[in-house]
């Protein structure tokens, strides 16, 4: 009995001691950055993020450590961060993505101003051009840093184009003529959608608005516009209605991006508007037929237009511990550095946010379609962010639920524009 007691006391002491030793070796002085992210699992950026996390943890071993928290699904991530904004407790580093999270966090006074940190590093500061500033800066202060750019044109099926005897259009009249030629050849011209923000459709719409003239361009460049009843928008939506009626598939009304993409992959349609992140899918035989990648061409929109805007980047949030904020700034700097952007380009074909990042031959070889697109995009004369990207919160959902009525003819373009205007006015975001 006595021996047992002694043994148990000795064991307990040994365990306590080992716990102390372990915690001192693992945690002493090392600052842990908990990083919830949706860029995990099947997300196309997951391999890049995983590698960057490993590299960061290696470089800063003993000083900082990133612990990734998987939040599959970007919408789930945005919802999680929104809830955390209301509670005033954000993780040290957040990724704005396309959800206007930066403005929400700024509204709750939870974001760290990183202007001084950026200016202290000339290489980092050099990345902040006019486009980047519009996305990541407010009132002359830098609050976020981007790593990826939203550079978007459209893809076309070269085989179907050849059958219809057409070439990529340089003007909208030519574009319509191409659609008519494809239709006459028995080919459905373009993939469209209405669900989930109508991603492909809104790209086509935004391009038409931006190239319609100064008023349209100004509209597309403005954040949170409230008047959707201006002539360029009404005219473009009228054309979108024509597309729904004459130039797209039957399942476009009610369909999501996935339906549109499937129609393109299966050769049901000749064109789809989307970004370079789709390029990998063309050679993925679980999504597209063998050899499909060779049939795909890429073009910028008529009127020399291309969507070109950095995706709202990573931002550092206010923490009780200033050392944790420092660690978070180091992480943002590392993740948005030229090296990190180069890696993302070469690994996954992600377009760098910074114009200072060189498109290497290795990247061009791995992603020739991307290289072709980047070359064409360099010659674009007009560029803006996307149509839905500038909408006030909630309007994208309304747009998506009301669009089927435009597609079916239940609404006139003017009626749809009025509905958008009413909602945007009611929920206006004033800076």
């Amino acid at each position, binding site marked *: 009995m006595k021996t047992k007691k002694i043994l148990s006391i000795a064991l307990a002491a040994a365990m306590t001691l080992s716990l102390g030793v372990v915690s001192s070796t693992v945690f002493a002085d090392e600052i842990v950055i908990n990083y919830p992210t949706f860029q995990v699992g099947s997300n196309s950026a997951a391999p890049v993020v995983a590698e960057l996390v490993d590299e960061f943890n290696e470089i800063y071993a003993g000083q900082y450590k990133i612990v990734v928290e998987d939040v599959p699904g970007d919408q789930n991530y945005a919802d999680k961060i929104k809830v955390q904004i209301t509670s005033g407790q954000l993780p040290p580093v957040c990724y704005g993505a396309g959800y206007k999270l930066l403005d929400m966090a700024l509204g709750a006074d939870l974001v760290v101003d990183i202007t001084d940190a950026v200016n202290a590093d000339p290489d980092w500061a050099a990345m902040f051009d006019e486009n980047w500033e519009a996305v990541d800066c407010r009132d002359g202060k830098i609050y976020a840093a981007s790593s990826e750019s939203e550079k978007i044109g459209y893809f076309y099926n070269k085989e179907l184009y050849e059958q219809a005897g057409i070439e990529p259009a340089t003007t909208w009249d030519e574009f319509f003529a191409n659609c008519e030629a494809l239709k006459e050849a028995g080919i459905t011209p373009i993939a469209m959608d209405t669900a989930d923000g109508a991603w492909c459709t809104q790209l086509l719409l935004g391009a038409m608005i931006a190239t319609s003239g100064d008023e349209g361009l100004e509209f597309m460049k403005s954040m949170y516009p409230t008047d959707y009843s201006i002539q360029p928008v009404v005219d473009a939506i009228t054309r979108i209605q024509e597309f729904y009626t004459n130039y797209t598939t039957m399942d476009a009304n009610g369909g999501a991006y996935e339906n549109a993409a499937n129609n393109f992959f299966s050769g049901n349609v000749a064109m789809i508007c989307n970004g370079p992140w789709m390029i990998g899918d063309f050679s993925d035989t679980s999504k597209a037929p063998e050899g499909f990648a060779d049939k795909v061409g890429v073009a910028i929109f008529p009127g020399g237009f291309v969507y070109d805007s950095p995706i709202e980047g990573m931002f550092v949030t206010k923490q009780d511990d200033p050392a944790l904020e420092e660690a978070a700034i180091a992480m943002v700097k590392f993740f948005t550095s030229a090296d990190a952007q180069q890696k993302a380009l070469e690994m996954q074909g992600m377009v760098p946010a910074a114009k200072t990042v060189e498109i290497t031959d290795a990247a061009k070889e791995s992603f020739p379609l991307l290289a072709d697109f980047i070359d064409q995009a360099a010659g674009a004369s007009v560029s803006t962010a996307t149509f839905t990207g500038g909408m006030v919160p909630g309007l994208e959902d309304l747009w998506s639920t*009301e669009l089927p009525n435009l597609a079916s003819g239940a609404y006139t373009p003017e009626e749809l524009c009025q509905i958008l205007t009413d909602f945007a006015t009611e929920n206006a975001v004033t800076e």
Partner: protein
Amino acid sequence: MRKKERKWIVLFLLPVCLLFVVFFAVPLGMVFVQSLFDYRLLPNKFEFIGFGNYAKLFLRDPKFLPVLKNTLLWILIHCIGHVALGSALAFVLYKKPRGWKFVRVVYMIPNIISQSAIAMIFVNMYNPQFGAVNQFLKAIGLEKLMHNWLFDMSTAFPAITMTWFLFAGYTTTLVLAQCLSTDETVIEAARVDGASGFQIDRLVMFPLVKEMIGTTVIMAATYMLQMFSMIYITTGGGPGSATTNLPLYLYSNMKSNNYGYASTIGVVIIIVGFLTMRIIQRIFGMNKEEVA
């Protein structure tokens, strides 16, 4: 002795009451309080506006009345049509015709499949391009009737309704169980008195299972009041607000960061739910002992 008993009763009820207060009553109160504020994240606002949200909802929101109408109509359709369908089948099955057990099991299957899976099945069935419904119409030469079922204003509501209307397995199971537990001598006595099969169902069996049918009606009403995923996955509430119900409208306002307004809709859902329950209880004469 009674005092001692009371102590134990209080002791056993305490944990449940505490859980109810912490996890239900307090959040419910918070929802009501929040509904009195203009509470948004972008622009960041938390302003007391009294019953401003309620005034906007009932007087100035053009979407609210159609959404409320959809919700009430679905409750009505579900409580009447769906329960009638399930009960009618139970009334057939309790007579134990050949294969009744097989039918009972098979009819229950759709109710044990996840709503998301059912929704995806219907999304594909209704697909205007490749869906089974349009292909069938085409095959029998009725191309004129082909529609974009889920996204045409005239067909969206009935198309969504059909995704859950026919699957009354729970109602059938509960009513059938009640029918089967009825004393057979009562039925036998009615038969000896010369009652026909229909008369036995109407005058003997129905009054005996009326309360259970009332319970299934309450279940049907709450099911409809909570309905979300099926609509969200199929139409997202569109086209326009043709298939939006109150929970979906609450969610879309929450997504717009309009938390105060979303809470107001939450309060309305609670009130609609409470009133619906009271009406059903009254119609089916439930909780009579409590009233007495």
